């Protein structure tokens, strides 16, 4: 603080070129990058997808940079810029974190309960559906015929994977 007081005496604020507040800008960029960073990259790996710790770490780093940048901007406004941009970027960053939290903690959990889905020990309901060649295939067929490309006889079981499609 002593340094600030001295600086005030030496120059008039209007003449001084105040320092760019890189902390708030890099904090903002980090927070904004964390959202696509998760969906385009971290979501590819179960270890960073199921619990998005890497993304929350990015938000934490962003928060720390923004906080440090804001403190400098308001503690020594005559030396460091960012009193206007800082709060705006902080709010936008908070918005990015909020959006991410909403998507990963709330929206992705809005699934129907599937209370009547077959349970362990139940008979799996029969079905008859078309394969990529248009041939109709029943569950009974899958359970009794060798897998395509396999040498052997009857399979020990069939794994049914219901997925949402690749749109």
């Amino acid at each position: 603080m002593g340094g600030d007081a001295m600086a005030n005496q030496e120059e008039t604020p209007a003449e001084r070129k105040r320092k760019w507040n890189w902390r708030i800008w890099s904090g903002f960029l980090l927070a904004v990058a964390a959202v696509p960073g998760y969906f385009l990259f971290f979501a590819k790996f179960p270890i960073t997808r199921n619990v998005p710790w890497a993304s929350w770490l990015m938000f934490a780093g962003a928060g720390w940079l923004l906080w440090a940048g804001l403190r400098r901007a308001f503690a020594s406004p005559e030396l460091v810029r960012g009193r206007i941009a800082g709060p705006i970027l902080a709010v936008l960053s908070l918005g990015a974190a909020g959006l991410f939290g909403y998507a990963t903690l709330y929206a992705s959990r809005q699934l129907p309960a599937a209370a009547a889905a077959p349970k362990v020990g139940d008979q799996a309901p029969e079905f008859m559906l078309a394969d990529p060649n248009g041939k109709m295939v029943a569950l009974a067929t899958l359970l009794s015929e060798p897998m395509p490309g396999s040498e052997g006889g009857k399979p020990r079981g069939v794994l049914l994977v219901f997925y949402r499609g690749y749109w």
Partner: protein
Amino acid sequence: MDSPEESATLCKKAGYTYTFLSDPKAEAIRHYDLLHRGAGVDGKDIARPAEFLVDASGVVRWRNLTEDLRVRAIPEDVLKGAQRLP
């Protein structure tokens, strides 16, 4: 839900050799109580993600109904389930 044509493209691109079935009318999806209304593109009905391991007699031996879209069964989970097959 992907059409048989879309599945064919996917299998070719990804090199999958196991059976892909299309359920455009959500028949099997309904029978398994897995319909997720309006969750697809343009508000179309699709399936909620789910996996079932069925033994040769048609009995479910293992299943996974994720509570979170982002969290799916990994191959190790399925292999653990496969140990319950007779």
